[in-house]
Protein backbone atom coordinates (compact mmCIF):
# COMPACT_ATOMS: atom_id res chain seq x y z
CA UNK A 1 0.00 0.00 0.00
CA UNK A 2 1.73 3.13 -1.17
CA UNK A 3 1.88 5.80 1.42
CA UNK A 4 -0.39 8.49 0.16
CA UNK A 5 1.15 11.87 -0.03
CA UNK A 6 0.01 13.86 2.90
CA UNK A 7 -1.85 16.82 1.68
CA UNK A 8 -2.53 19.97 3.57
CA UNK A 9 -6.20 19.27 3.14
CA UNK A 10 -5.84 16.14 5.21
CA UNK A 11 -7.96 13.08 4.44
CA UNK A 12 -5.39 10.37 4.14
CA UNK A 13 -6.57 6.88 3.45
CA UNK A 14 -7.37 5.69 6.92
CA UNK A 15 -4.98 2.78 7.26
CA UNK A 16 -2.17 3.73 4.94
CA UNK A 17 1.16 3.30 6.61
CA UNK A 18 -0.35 2.12 9.86
CA UNK A 19 -0.18 -1.62 9.46
CA UNK A 20 1.13 -4.17 6.99
CA UNK A 21 -1.06 -4.53 3.92
CA UNK A 22 -4.37 -6.25 4.52
CA UNK A 23 -5.30 -8.11 1.37
CA UNK A 24 -8.09 -6.22 -0.41
CA UNK A 25 -10.45 -9.19 -0.57
CA UNK A 26 -11.01 -8.84 3.16
CA UNK A 27 -13.41 -6.06 2.30
CA UNK A 28 -15.72 -8.54 0.65
CA UNK A 29 -15.98 -10.76 3.72
CA UNK A 30 -19.27 -9.33 5.06
CA UNK A 31 -21.00 -10.07 1.78
CA UNK A 32 -19.57 -13.53 1.25
CA UNK A 33 -20.06 -14.41 4.88
CA UNK A 34 -23.72 -13.45 4.78
CA UNK A 35 -24.27 -15.36 1.56
CA UNK A 36 -22.44 -18.37 2.98
CA UNK A 37 -24.78 -18.61 5.95
CA UNK A 38 -28.07 -17.84 4.27
CA UNK A 39 -27.59 -19.22 0.82
CA UNK A 40 -24.71 -21.67 0.62
CA UNK A 41 -25.58 -23.54 3.78
CA UNK A 42 -29.24 -24.15 2.78
CA UNK A 43 -28.06 -25.06 -0.73
CA UNK A 44 -25.58 -27.43 0.82
CA UNK A 45 -28.33 -29.05 2.81
CA UNK A 46 -30.36 -29.48 -0.37
CA UNK A 47 -27.39 -30.99 -2.20
CA UNK A 48 -26.61 -33.26 0.73
CA UNK A 49 -30.18 -34.50 0.91
CA UNK A 50 -30.10 -35.21 -2.81
CA UNK A 51 -27.64 -37.98 -2.11
CA UNK A 52 -29.78 -39.68 0.50
CA UNK A 53 -32.90 -41.75 0.27
CA UNK A 54 -36.05 -41.28 2.39
CA UNK A 55 -34.72 -43.73 4.95
CA UNK A 56 -31.70 -41.51 5.48
CA UNK A 57 -29.10 -43.71 3.90
CA UNK A 58 -26.55 -42.49 1.41
CA UNK A 59 -27.47 -43.40 -2.14
CA UNK A 60 -26.91 -42.36 -5.70
CA UNK A 61 -30.38 -43.42 -6.84
CA UNK A 62 -31.70 -39.85 -6.73
CA UNK A 63 -28.95 -38.76 -9.09
CA UNK A 64 -29.26 -41.71 -11.44
CA UNK A 65 -33.02 -41.11 -11.56
CA UNK A 66 -32.13 -37.84 -13.24
CA UNK A 67 -31.05 -39.85 -16.24
CA UNK A 68 -34.36 -41.46 -17.06
CA UNK A 69 -36.26 -40.22 -20.09
CA UNK A 70 -39.18 -38.73 -18.21
CA UNK A 71 -36.90 -36.54 -16.13
CA UNK A 72 -34.88 -35.59 -19.17
CA UNK A 73 -38.16 -34.47 -20.69
CA UNK A 74 -38.77 -32.18 -17.72
CA UNK A 75 -35.34 -30.60 -18.03
CA UNK A 76 -35.73 -30.12 -21.75
CA UNK A 77 -39.16 -28.60 -21.21
CA UNK A 78 -37.82 -26.24 -18.57
CA UNK A 79 -34.87 -25.24 -20.72
CA UNK A 80 -37.04 -24.62 -23.78
CA UNK A 81 -39.53 -22.52 -21.89
CA UNK A 82 -36.86 -20.50 -20.09
CA UNK A 83 -34.86 -19.87 -23.24
CA UNK A 84 -37.81 -18.79 -25.35
CA UNK A 85 -39.45 -16.64 -22.71
CA UNK A 86 -36.18 -14.99 -21.74
CA UNK A 87 -35.25 -14.21 -25.36
CA UNK A 88 -38.66 -12.75 -26.07
CA UNK A 89 -38.67 -10.87 -22.78
CA UNK A 90 -35.16 -9.56 -23.33
CA UNK A 91 -35.69 -8.31 -26.86
CA UNK A 92 -39.12 -6.78 -26.25
CA UNK A 93 -37.98 -5.42 -22.90
CA UNK A 94 -34.94 -3.82 -24.49
CA UNK A 95 -37.14 -2.10 -27.04
CA UNK A 96 -39.46 -0.83 -24.33
CA UNK A 97 -36.49 0.25 -22.21
CA UNK A 98 -35.11 2.21 -25.15
CA UNK A 99 -38.46 3.90 -25.61
CA UNK A 100 -38.54 4.85 -21.95
CA UNK A 101 -34.93 5.96 -21.86
CA UNK A 102 -35.17 8.22 -24.86
CA UNK A 103 -37.76 10.38 -23.18
CA UNK A 104 -37.55 13.01 -20.52
CA UNK A 105 -35.35 11.64 -17.72
CA UNK A 106 -37.44 13.24 -15.03
CA UNK A 107 -40.74 12.94 -16.81
CA UNK A 108 -43.95 11.31 -15.78
CA UNK A 109 -43.92 8.53 -18.36
CA UNK A 110 -40.56 7.29 -17.28
CA UNK A 111 -41.49 7.30 -13.65
CA UNK A 112 -44.78 5.62 -14.40
CA UNK A 113 -43.25 2.86 -16.48
CA UNK A 114 -40.54 2.31 -13.91
CA UNK A 115 -43.00 1.80 -11.08
CA UNK A 116 -45.38 -0.25 -13.16
CA UNK A 117 -42.43 -2.41 -14.18
CA UNK A 118 -41.41 -2.80 -10.59
CA UNK A 119 -44.83 -3.99 -9.61
CA UNK A 120 -45.39 -6.25 -12.59
CA UNK A 121 -41.93 -7.83 -12.50
CA UNK A 122 -42.87 -9.58 -9.29
CA UNK A 123 -46.46 -10.20 -10.24
CA UNK A 124 -47.21 -13.73 -11.08
CA UNK A 125 -48.75 -16.84 -9.73
CA UNK A 126 -52.37 -17.67 -9.48
CA UNK A 127 -53.81 -14.26 -10.22
CA UNK A 128 -51.72 -13.62 -13.32
CA UNK A 129 -52.47 -17.03 -14.80
CA UNK A 130 -56.10 -16.59 -13.96
CA UNK A 131 -56.28 -13.13 -15.49
CA UNK A 132 -54.99 -14.57 -18.76
CA UNK A 133 -57.30 -17.55 -18.45
CA UNK A 134 -60.25 -15.21 -18.17
CA UNK A 135 -58.94 -13.10 -21.05
CA UNK A 136 -57.97 -15.66 -23.70
CA UNK A 137 -58.77 -19.01 -22.20
CA UNK A 138 -61.54 -21.38 -23.18
CA UNK A 139 -64.25 -18.95 -22.08
CA UNK A 140 -62.13 -15.92 -22.87
CA UNK A 141 -63.50 -12.41 -22.58
CA UNK A 142 -61.40 -11.25 -25.49
CA UNK A 143 -61.24 -14.33 -27.66
CA UNK A 144 -60.43 -18.01 -27.25
CA UNK A 145 -56.83 -18.69 -28.09
CA UNK A 146 -56.61 -22.28 -29.22
CA UNK A 147 -52.92 -22.25 -28.38
CA UNK A 148 -53.54 -21.10 -24.82
CA UNK A 149 -52.84 -24.47 -23.28
CA UNK A 150 -50.02 -25.36 -25.62
CA UNK A 151 -46.50 -25.66 -24.31
CA UNK A 152 -44.39 -23.57 -24.47
CA UNK A 153 -46.15 -20.84 -26.42
CA UNK A 154 -49.23 -20.47 -24.26
CA UNK A 155 -47.30 -20.15 -21.05
CA UNK A 156 -44.65 -18.00 -22.73
CA UNK A 157 -47.22 -15.28 -23.32
CA UNK A 158 -47.97 -15.29 -19.60
CA UNK A 159 -44.30 -15.32 -18.66
CA UNK A 160 -43.67 -12.37 -20.97
CA UNK A 161 -45.93 -10.39 -18.69
CA UNK A 162 -43.33 -10.30 -15.95
CA UNK A 163 -40.19 -10.93 -18.00
CA UNK A 164 -40.57 -7.71 -19.99
CA UNK A 165 -40.91 -5.40 -16.97
CA UNK A 166 -38.00 -7.15 -15.32
CA UNK A 167 -35.90 -6.52 -18.40
CA UNK A 168 -36.87 -2.86 -18.43
CA UNK A 169 -35.80 -2.45 -14.82
CA UNK A 170 -32.43 -4.12 -15.07
CA UNK A 171 -31.50 -2.88 -18.54
CA UNK A 172 -32.56 0.75 -18.33
CA UNK A 173 -29.45 1.96 -16.46
CA UNK A 174 -27.30 0.50 -19.23
CA UNK A 175 -29.17 2.39 -21.93
CA UNK A 176 -28.97 5.53 -19.86
CA UNK A 177 -25.23 5.09 -19.89
CA UNK A 178 -25.10 5.52 -23.64
CA UNK A 179 -24.03 9.08 -23.88
CA UNK A 180 -25.86 11.27 -26.30
CA UNK A 181 -22.54 12.66 -27.48
CA UNK A 182 -21.54 9.30 -28.84
CA UNK A 183 -24.63 9.22 -31.01
CA UNK A 184 -24.05 12.75 -32.23
CA UNK A 185 -20.39 12.07 -32.82
CA UNK A 186 -21.08 9.04 -34.88
CA UNK A 187 -23.67 10.91 -36.89
CA UNK A 188 -21.23 13.71 -37.52
CA UNK A 189 -18.90 11.10 -38.88
CA UNK A 190 -21.62 10.08 -41.28
CA UNK A 191 -22.82 6.80 -39.92
CA UNK A 192 -26.38 5.68 -40.30
CA UNK A 193 -28.49 4.48 -37.43
CA UNK A 194 -27.76 0.90 -38.35
CA UNK A 195 -24.03 1.51 -38.28
CA UNK A 196 -24.29 3.29 -34.98
CA UNK A 197 -26.02 0.38 -33.36
CA UNK A 198 -23.85 -2.20 -35.06
CA UNK A 199 -20.47 -0.65 -34.13
CA UNK A 200 -21.07 1.59 -31.16
CA UNK A 201 -24.31 1.18 -29.28
CA UNK A 202 -24.71 -2.56 -29.68
CA UNK A 203 -21.30 -3.64 -28.43
CA UNK A 204 -21.52 -1.21 -25.54
CA UNK A 205 -24.85 -2.62 -24.47
CA UNK A 206 -24.04 -6.23 -25.13
CA UNK A 207 -22.56 -7.17 -21.75
CA UNK A 208 -25.48 -5.68 -19.87
CA UNK A 209 -27.92 -7.27 -22.32
CA UNK A 210 -26.41 -10.70 -21.84
CA UNK A 211 -26.44 -10.27 -18.09
CA UNK A 212 -30.09 -9.31 -18.13
CA UNK A 213 -30.87 -12.22 -20.44
CA UNK A 214 -29.22 -14.56 -17.98
CA UNK A 215 -31.32 -13.15 -15.17
CA UNK A 216 -34.51 -13.59 -17.17
CA UNK A 217 -33.49 -17.14 -18.00
CA UNK A 218 -32.96 -18.07 -14.36
CA UNK A 219 -36.15 -16.25 -13.43
CA UNK A 220 -38.18 -18.33 -15.86
CA UNK A 221 -36.39 -21.52 -14.87
CA UNK A 222 -37.37 -21.37 -11.24
CA UNK A 223 -40.84 -19.93 -11.72
CA UNK A 224 -43.38 -22.27 -10.34
CA UNK A 225 -46.53 -20.60 -9.06
CA UNK A 226 -47.52 -19.19 -12.45
CA UNK A 227 -47.13 -22.35 -14.47
CA UNK A 228 -48.83 -24.40 -11.80
CA UNK A 229 -51.81 -22.09 -11.86
CA UNK A 230 -51.83 -22.08 -15.66
CA UNK A 231 -52.34 -25.79 -15.58
CA UNK A 232 -51.23 -28.49 -13.22
CA UNK A 233 -52.61 -31.73 -14.57
CA UNK A 234 -49.68 -32.20 -16.97
CA UNK A 235 -46.13 -31.73 -15.67
CA UNK A 236 -43.88 -29.96 -18.16
CA UNK A 237 -41.15 -28.41 -16.11
CA UNK A 238 -38.79 -29.32 -13.34
CA UNK A 239 -40.28 -27.03 -10.65
CA UNK A 240 -43.68 -28.61 -11.23
CA UNK A 241 -42.14 -32.03 -10.72
CA UNK A 242 -40.25 -30.81 -7.65
CA UNK A 243 -43.46 -29.59 -6.13
CA UNK A 244 -45.20 -32.87 -6.92
CA UNK A 245 -42.42 -34.84 -5.24
CA UNK A 246 -42.43 -32.64 -2.21
CA UNK A 247 -46.10 -32.45 -1.50
CA UNK A 248 -47.57 -35.60 -2.92
CA UNK A 249 -50.46 -36.81 -0.85
CA UNK A 250 -50.63 -40.17 -2.55
CA UNK A 251 -47.51 -41.65 -1.08
CA UNK A 252 -45.20 -40.58 -3.89
CA UNK A 253 -43.57 -37.86 -1.85
CA UNK A 254 -39.82 -38.07 -1.96
CA UNK A 255 -37.96 -35.04 -0.75
CA UNK A 256 -34.63 -36.51 -1.74
CA UNK A 257 -35.80 -36.87 -5.31
CA UNK A 258 -36.96 -33.27 -5.21
CA UNK A 259 -33.55 -32.24 -3.91
CA UNK A 260 -31.87 -34.20 -6.66
CA UNK A 261 -33.98 -32.34 -9.21
CA UNK A 262 -33.03 -29.05 -7.59
CA UNK A 263 -29.38 -30.05 -7.78
CA UNK A 264 -29.92 -30.74 -11.46
CA UNK A 265 -31.28 -27.23 -11.88
CA UNK A 266 -28.26 -25.70 -10.18
CA UNK A 267 -25.96 -27.68 -12.48
CA UNK A 268 -27.98 -26.52 -15.48
CA UNK A 269 -27.60 -22.91 -14.46
CA UNK A 270 -23.88 -23.41 -13.83
CA UNK A 271 -23.53 -24.72 -17.37
CA UNK A 272 -25.53 -21.82 -18.78
CA UNK A 273 -23.43 -19.38 -16.78
CA UNK A 274 -20.25 -20.86 -18.20
CA UNK A 275 -21.59 -20.31 -21.69
CA UNK A 276 -22.54 -16.80 -20.67
CA UNK A 277 -19.05 -16.10 -19.31
CA UNK A 278 -17.52 -17.24 -22.59
CA UNK A 279 -19.91 -15.00 -24.51
CA UNK A 280 -18.98 -12.03 -22.32
CA UNK A 281 -15.32 -12.58 -22.94
CA UNK A 282 -16.01 -12.67 -26.68
CA UNK A 283 -18.05 -9.48 -26.40
CA UNK A 284 -15.36 -7.74 -24.36
CA UNK A 285 -12.91 -8.37 -27.18
CA UNK A 286 -15.13 -6.34 -29.50
CA UNK A 287 -14.97 -3.41 -27.16
CA UNK A 288 -11.27 -3.13 -26.74
Amino acid at each position, binding site marked *: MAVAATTRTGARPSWAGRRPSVPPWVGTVPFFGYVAVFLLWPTGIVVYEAFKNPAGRFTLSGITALGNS*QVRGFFIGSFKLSLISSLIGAVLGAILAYAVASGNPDGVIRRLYLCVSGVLAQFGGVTLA*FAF*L*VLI*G*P*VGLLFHAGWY*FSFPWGITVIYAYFQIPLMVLVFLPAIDGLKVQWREASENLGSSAWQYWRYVGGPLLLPAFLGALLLLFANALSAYATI*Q*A*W*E*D*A*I*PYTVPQQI*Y*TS*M*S*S*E*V*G*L*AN*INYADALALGMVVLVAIVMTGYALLQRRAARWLR
Partner: protein
Amino acid sequence: MSALIAAAKKEGTLNVIALPPTWANYGTIISTFEKKYGITINSALPDGSSQQEVDAIKAENGSPKAPDVVDVGLAVALANTSLFAPYEVSTWSDIPAAQKDPSGLWYEDYGGYMAVGYSSKFGTITSLSQLLGPQFKNAVALNGNPTSANAALNGVMMASLAEGGSAGNIAPGVNFFAKLKAAGNFSPVEATGASIKAGTTPVVFDWDYLNLPTYVGVSDWKVFIPQNAVLGGFYAQAINKNAPHPAAARLWEEFLYSQAADGGQNLWLEGGARPVEQAAMTSDGTINTSAAAELPTVTGTPVFLTEAQSTAAAQYLAANWAKAVS
Protein backbone atom coordinates in the same frame (compact mmCIF):
# COMPACT_ATOMS: atom_id res chain seq x y z
CA MET B 1 -62.56 -34.23 31.15
CA SER B 2 -62.82 -31.10 33.27
CA ALA B 3 -59.15 -31.51 34.20
CA LEU B 4 -58.35 -31.65 30.50
CA ILE B 5 -60.34 -28.49 29.83
CA ALA B 6 -58.56 -26.67 32.65
CA ALA B 7 -55.13 -27.77 31.44
CA ALA B 8 -55.98 -26.78 27.86
CA LYS B 9 -57.22 -23.35 28.90
CA LYS B 10 -53.98 -22.85 30.77
CA GLU B 11 -52.05 -23.50 27.56
CA GLY B 12 -54.34 -21.00 25.86
CA THR B 13 -53.29 -21.73 22.27
CA LEU B 14 -53.65 -24.43 19.65
CA ASN B 15 -51.66 -24.75 16.41
CA VAL B 16 -53.55 -26.29 13.53
CA ILE B 17 -52.43 -26.61 9.94
CA ALA B 18 -53.92 -26.99 6.43
CA LEU B 19 -57.53 -26.38 7.44
CA PRO B 20 -59.20 -24.17 4.85
CA PRO B 21 -62.20 -22.43 6.43
CA THR B 22 -64.56 -23.44 3.65
CA TRP B 23 -63.47 -27.09 3.62
CA ALA B 24 -66.03 -29.26 5.39
CA ASN B 25 -67.09 -26.31 7.52
CA TYR B 26 -63.74 -25.94 9.28
CA GLY B 27 -64.23 -22.19 9.61
CA THR B 28 -67.23 -22.69 11.88
CA ILE B 29 -65.56 -25.56 13.70
CA ILE B 30 -62.56 -23.39 14.55
CA SER B 31 -64.60 -20.42 15.69
CA THR B 32 -66.97 -22.60 17.73
CA PHE B 33 -64.03 -24.18 19.55
CA GLU B 34 -62.41 -20.80 20.16
CA LYS B 35 -65.60 -19.36 21.61
CA LYS B 36 -66.46 -22.41 23.65
CA TYR B 37 -63.12 -22.79 25.42
CA GLY B 38 -61.50 -19.40 25.01
CA ILE B 39 -58.46 -20.97 23.35
CA THR B 40 -56.86 -19.13 20.42
CA ILE B 41 -56.30 -21.20 17.33
CA ASN B 42 -53.37 -20.40 15.01
CA SER B 43 -54.32 -21.77 11.64
CA ALA B 44 -51.24 -22.08 9.45
CA LEU B 45 -50.87 -22.96 5.75
CA PRO B 46 -54.61 -23.26 5.00
CA ASP B 47 -54.01 -24.57 1.50
CA GLY B 48 -51.36 -27.08 2.41
CA SER B 49 -51.36 -30.73 1.46
CA SER B 50 -51.24 -33.67 3.86
CA GLN B 51 -47.57 -34.19 3.11
CA GLN B 52 -46.83 -30.58 4.02
CA GLU B 53 -48.56 -31.10 7.36
CA VAL B 54 -46.23 -33.89 8.40
CA ASP B 55 -43.28 -32.02 6.90
CA ALA B 56 -44.17 -29.12 9.17
CA ILE B 57 -44.19 -31.44 12.17
CA LYS B 58 -40.71 -32.62 11.29
CA ALA B 59 -39.29 -29.26 10.31
CA GLU B 60 -40.74 -27.33 13.27
CA ASN B 61 -39.91 -29.95 15.86
CA GLY B 62 -39.24 -28.18 19.13
CA SER B 63 -40.55 -24.85 17.94
CA PRO B 64 -43.59 -23.28 19.62
CA LYS B 65 -45.08 -22.95 16.13
CA ALA B 66 -45.18 -26.68 15.43
CA PRO B 67 -48.59 -28.11 14.59
CA ASP B 68 -50.36 -29.75 17.53
CA VAL B 69 -52.79 -31.80 15.47
CA VAL B 70 -53.04 -32.82 11.85
CA ASP B 71 -55.82 -33.82 9.50
CA VAL B 72 -54.28 -35.90 6.74
CA GLY B 73 -55.06 -38.38 4.01
CA LEU B 74 -54.91 -42.00 5.07
CA ALA B 75 -51.79 -42.81 3.06
CA VAL B 76 -49.84 -40.03 4.74
CA ALA B 77 -51.12 -41.00 8.19
CA LEU B 78 -50.09 -44.63 7.77
CA ALA B 79 -46.63 -43.62 6.59
CA ASN B 80 -45.94 -41.31 9.52
CA THR B 81 -47.26 -43.05 12.63
CA SER B 82 -43.89 -42.54 14.31
CA LEU B 83 -44.73 -38.84 14.62
CA PHE B 84 -48.01 -39.32 16.47
CA ALA B 85 -49.01 -39.74 20.09
CA PRO B 86 -51.67 -42.36 20.90
CA TYR B 87 -54.95 -41.02 22.22
CA GLU B 88 -58.45 -42.42 22.44
CA VAL B 89 -61.31 -39.92 22.53
CA SER B 90 -64.22 -40.51 24.88
CA THR B 91 -66.43 -41.63 21.97
CA TRP B 92 -63.74 -44.08 20.76
CA SER B 93 -66.09 -47.05 20.68
CA ASP B 94 -68.38 -45.25 18.22
CA ILE B 95 -65.66 -45.14 15.57
CA PRO B 96 -65.86 -48.27 13.38
CA ALA B 97 -62.92 -50.59 13.97
CA ALA B 98 -61.80 -50.51 10.35
CA GLN B 99 -61.48 -46.72 10.51
CA LYS B 100 -59.05 -46.31 13.38
CA ASP B 101 -55.66 -47.52 14.42
CA PRO B 102 -55.98 -50.09 17.22
CA SER B 103 -53.26 -48.41 19.28
CA GLY B 104 -54.87 -45.00 18.90
CA LEU B 105 -52.24 -43.33 16.76
CA TRP B 106 -54.70 -42.16 14.09
CA TYR B 107 -58.44 -42.20 13.68
CA GLU B 108 -60.56 -41.25 10.71
CA ASP B 109 -62.70 -38.16 11.06
CA TYR B 110 -64.83 -37.33 8.03
CA GLY B 111 -65.07 -38.27 4.44
CA GLY B 112 -67.18 -38.33 1.37
CA TYR B 113 -67.67 -39.96 -1.94
CA MET B 114 -66.03 -38.94 -5.18
CA ALA B 115 -68.60 -37.13 -7.28
CA VAL B 116 -68.95 -35.11 -10.43
CA GLY B 117 -70.17 -31.58 -9.92
CA TYR B 118 -71.42 -29.61 -12.90
CA SER B 119 -73.14 -26.44 -13.92
CA SER B 120 -76.84 -26.87 -14.54
CA LYS B 121 -76.45 -25.42 -18.05
CA PHE B 122 -75.64 -28.99 -19.09
CA GLY B 123 -79.03 -30.30 -17.99
CA THR B 124 -78.76 -33.48 -15.97
CA ILE B 125 -75.83 -35.84 -16.24
CA THR B 126 -76.33 -39.44 -15.24
CA SER B 127 -73.29 -41.24 -16.57
CA LEU B 128 -69.66 -40.49 -17.27
CA SER B 129 -69.85 -41.43 -20.93
CA GLN B 130 -71.98 -38.34 -21.52
CA LEU B 131 -68.89 -36.27 -20.72
CA LEU B 132 -67.32 -37.35 -23.99
CA GLY B 133 -69.93 -35.39 -25.92
CA PRO B 134 -69.12 -32.24 -27.92
CA GLN B 135 -70.89 -29.80 -25.61
CA PHE B 136 -68.22 -30.45 -22.97
CA LYS B 137 -65.31 -28.95 -24.91
CA ASN B 138 -62.53 -27.89 -22.49
CA ALA B 139 -64.96 -28.37 -19.63
CA VAL B 140 -63.94 -31.31 -17.47
CA ALA B 141 -61.40 -30.76 -14.73
CA LEU B 142 -59.89 -32.56 -11.76
CA ASN B 143 -58.96 -31.08 -8.42
CA GLY B 144 -55.25 -31.02 -9.06
CA ASN B 145 -52.66 -33.39 -10.45
CA PRO B 146 -53.39 -37.08 -9.76
CA THR B 147 -49.74 -37.86 -9.13
CA SER B 148 -49.72 -35.52 -6.19
CA ALA B 149 -53.23 -34.63 -5.04
CA ASN B 150 -55.32 -37.21 -3.24
CA ALA B 151 -58.61 -35.85 -4.50
CA ALA B 152 -57.42 -36.01 -8.11
CA LEU B 153 -56.13 -39.57 -7.78
CA ASN B 154 -59.47 -40.64 -6.41
CA GLY B 155 -61.18 -38.82 -9.26
CA VAL B 156 -59.32 -40.97 -11.78
CA MET B 157 -60.01 -44.08 -9.68
CA MET B 158 -63.71 -43.32 -9.61
CA ALA B 159 -63.70 -43.01 -13.37
CA SER B 160 -61.93 -46.35 -13.44
CA LEU B 161 -64.66 -47.97 -11.33
CA ALA B 162 -67.30 -46.51 -13.61
CA GLU B 163 -65.49 -47.84 -16.68
CA GLY B 164 -65.30 -51.38 -15.40
CA GLY B 165 -62.03 -51.25 -13.53
CA SER B 166 -61.57 -52.13 -9.88
CA ALA B 167 -59.89 -50.76 -6.77
CA GLY B 168 -56.75 -52.56 -7.78
CA ASN B 169 -56.75 -51.37 -11.38
CA ILE B 170 -56.73 -47.69 -12.27
CA ALA B 171 -55.86 -48.18 -15.94
CA PRO B 172 -59.45 -47.81 -17.25
CA GLY B 173 -59.67 -44.48 -15.46
CA VAL B 174 -56.50 -43.21 -17.09
CA ASN B 175 -57.84 -44.38 -20.44
CA PHE B 176 -61.07 -42.50 -19.83
CA PHE B 177 -59.17 -39.27 -19.29
CA ALA B 178 -57.07 -39.98 -22.35
CA LYS B 179 -60.31 -40.25 -24.31
CA LEU B 180 -61.51 -36.99 -22.78
CA LYS B 181 -58.30 -35.31 -23.80
CA ALA B 182 -58.53 -36.69 -27.33
CA ALA B 183 -62.08 -35.34 -27.61
CA GLY B 184 -60.77 -31.94 -26.48
CA ASN B 185 -62.93 -32.05 -23.36
CA PHE B 186 -60.23 -32.24 -20.70
CA SER B 187 -59.23 -29.03 -18.98
CA PRO B 188 -55.81 -29.20 -17.35
CA VAL B 189 -56.61 -26.34 -14.99
CA GLU B 190 -57.01 -27.17 -11.32
CA ALA B 191 -60.65 -26.69 -10.46
CA THR B 192 -61.04 -23.98 -7.84
CA GLY B 193 -63.86 -21.73 -6.78
CA ALA B 194 -62.49 -19.05 -9.04
CA SER B 195 -62.25 -21.23 -12.14
CA ILE B 196 -65.74 -22.56 -11.58
CA LYS B 197 -67.19 -19.12 -11.12
CA ALA B 198 -65.50 -17.89 -14.28
CA GLY B 199 -67.05 -20.74 -16.17
CA THR B 200 -63.69 -22.20 -17.14
CA THR B 201 -64.26 -25.55 -15.43
CA PRO B 202 -67.98 -26.23 -15.49
CA VAL B 203 -67.52 -29.95 -14.76
CA VAL B 204 -65.44 -30.98 -11.77
CA PHE B 205 -64.40 -34.34 -10.34
CA ASP B 206 -64.15 -33.80 -6.60
CA TRP B 207 -65.31 -35.06 -3.21
CA ASP B 208 -69.03 -34.51 -2.72
CA TYR B 209 -68.50 -32.17 0.23
CA LEU B 210 -66.36 -30.01 -2.00
CA ASN B 211 -69.02 -29.99 -4.69
CA LEU B 212 -71.64 -28.18 -2.62
CA PRO B 213 -73.23 -25.15 -4.25
CA THR B 214 -72.30 -23.09 -1.19
CA TYR B 215 -68.66 -24.20 -1.30
CA VAL B 216 -68.40 -23.74 -5.02
CA GLY B 217 -70.15 -20.37 -4.99
CA VAL B 218 -72.45 -21.12 -7.90
CA SER B 219 -76.09 -21.40 -6.91
CA ASP B 220 -77.16 -23.74 -9.71
CA TRP B 221 -74.46 -26.35 -9.24
CA LYS B 222 -75.50 -29.99 -9.45
CA VAL B 223 -73.82 -33.16 -8.27
CA PHE B 224 -74.00 -36.78 -9.27
CA ILE B 225 -72.25 -39.96 -8.20
CA PRO B 226 -72.14 -42.60 -10.94
CA GLN B 227 -74.00 -45.80 -10.28
CA ASN B 228 -71.85 -48.54 -8.83
CA ALA B 229 -68.80 -46.31 -8.83
CA VAL B 230 -69.01 -45.19 -5.25
CA LEU B 231 -65.50 -44.42 -4.11
CA GLY B 232 -65.17 -43.25 -0.55
CA GLY B 233 -62.29 -41.49 1.07
CA PHE B 234 -61.84 -40.49 4.66
CA TYR B 235 -59.26 -38.24 6.26
CA ALA B 236 -57.60 -39.03 9.57
CA GLN B 237 -56.79 -37.09 12.73
CA ALA B 238 -53.57 -37.46 14.70
CA ILE B 239 -51.83 -35.67 17.56
CA ASN B 240 -48.21 -34.58 17.26
CA LYS B 241 -46.04 -36.58 19.66
CA ASN B 242 -44.10 -33.41 20.52
CA ALA B 243 -47.02 -31.03 20.42
CA PRO B 244 -46.26 -27.67 22.02
CA HIS B 245 -49.77 -27.65 23.49
CA PRO B 246 -50.63 -31.30 24.34
CA ALA B 247 -53.70 -30.65 26.49
CA ALA B 248 -55.26 -28.27 23.95
CA ALA B 249 -54.57 -30.85 21.24
CA ARG B 250 -56.45 -33.56 23.13
CA LEU B 251 -59.30 -31.20 23.94
CA TRP B 252 -59.56 -30.37 20.23
CA GLU B 253 -59.90 -34.06 19.41
CA GLU B 254 -62.58 -34.47 22.08
CA PHE B 255 -64.41 -31.55 20.50
CA LEU B 256 -64.13 -32.96 17.00
CA TYR B 257 -65.52 -36.32 17.99
CA SER B 258 -68.21 -34.96 20.28
CA GLN B 259 -71.69 -35.92 19.18
CA ALA B 260 -73.33 -32.83 20.63
CA ALA B 261 -75.43 -30.63 18.39
CA ASP B 262 -72.55 -28.15 18.15
CA GLY B 263 -69.83 -30.77 18.27
CA GLY B 264 -67.36 -31.51 15.51
CA GLN B 265 -69.20 -34.48 14.05
CA ASN B 266 -72.40 -32.54 13.38
CA LEU B 267 -70.51 -29.47 12.20
CA TRP B 268 -68.72 -31.59 9.63
CA LEU B 269 -72.05 -33.00 8.57
CA GLU B 270 -73.30 -29.47 8.04
CA GLY B 271 -70.29 -28.97 5.80
CA GLY B 272 -71.51 -31.80 3.59
CA ALA B 273 -68.98 -34.34 4.82
CA ARG B 274 -69.91 -37.69 6.30
CA PRO B 275 -68.68 -37.91 9.92
CA VAL B 276 -67.03 -41.17 10.88
CA GLU B 277 -69.41 -41.74 13.78
CA GLN B 278 -72.44 -41.33 11.52
CA ALA B 279 -73.79 -44.85 12.03
CA ALA B 280 -73.62 -44.63 15.81
CA MET B 281 -75.11 -41.15 15.83
CA THR B 282 -78.01 -42.13 13.61
CA SER B 283 -79.06 -44.91 15.96
CA ASP B 284 -78.49 -42.67 18.97
CA GLY B 285 -80.52 -39.89 17.44
CA THR B 286 -77.78 -37.33 18.05
CA ILE B 287 -77.31 -36.72 14.36
CA ASN B 288 -78.51 -33.58 12.62
CA THR B 289 -81.15 -35.24 10.45
CA SER B 290 -81.80 -32.32 8.12
CA ALA B 291 -78.12 -32.00 7.30
CA ALA B 292 -77.89 -35.75 6.80
CA ALA B 293 -80.78 -35.68 4.38
CA GLU B 294 -78.94 -33.22 2.13
CA LEU B 295 -76.14 -35.62 1.33
CA PRO B 296 -76.17 -36.85 -2.28
CA THR B 297 -77.79 -40.22 -2.83
CA VAL B 298 -75.64 -43.20 -3.68
CA THR B 299 -76.51 -46.46 -5.36
CA GLY B 300 -74.04 -49.26 -4.91
CA THR B 301 -71.65 -50.38 -2.24
CA PRO B 302 -68.96 -47.91 -1.30
CA VAL B 303 -65.40 -48.91 -2.07
CA PHE B 304 -62.50 -47.74 0.07
CA LEU B 305 -58.93 -48.00 -1.19
CA THR B 306 -56.47 -49.85 0.99
CA GLU B 307 -52.99 -48.48 1.39
CA ALA B 308 -51.56 -51.06 -0.99
CA GLN B 309 -54.15 -50.24 -3.62
CA SER B 310 -53.62 -46.51 -3.43
CA THR B 311 -49.83 -46.90 -3.63
CA ALA B 312 -50.20 -49.15 -6.66
CA ALA B 313 -52.55 -46.65 -8.27
CA ALA B 314 -50.11 -43.80 -7.55
CA GLN B 315 -47.23 -45.69 -9.10
CA TYR B 316 -49.25 -46.52 -12.19
CA LEU B 317 -50.15 -42.85 -12.53
CA ALA B 318 -46.57 -41.73 -12.04
CA ALA B 319 -45.58 -43.85 -15.00
CA ASN B 320 -48.57 -43.32 -17.29
CA TRP B 321 -50.56 -40.19 -16.51
CA ALA B 322 -48.36 -37.66 -18.28
CA LYS B 323 -48.34 -39.73 -21.45
CA ALA B 324 -52.08 -40.18 -21.44
CA VAL B 325 -53.09 -36.55 -21.18
CA SER B 326 -50.35 -34.61 -22.92
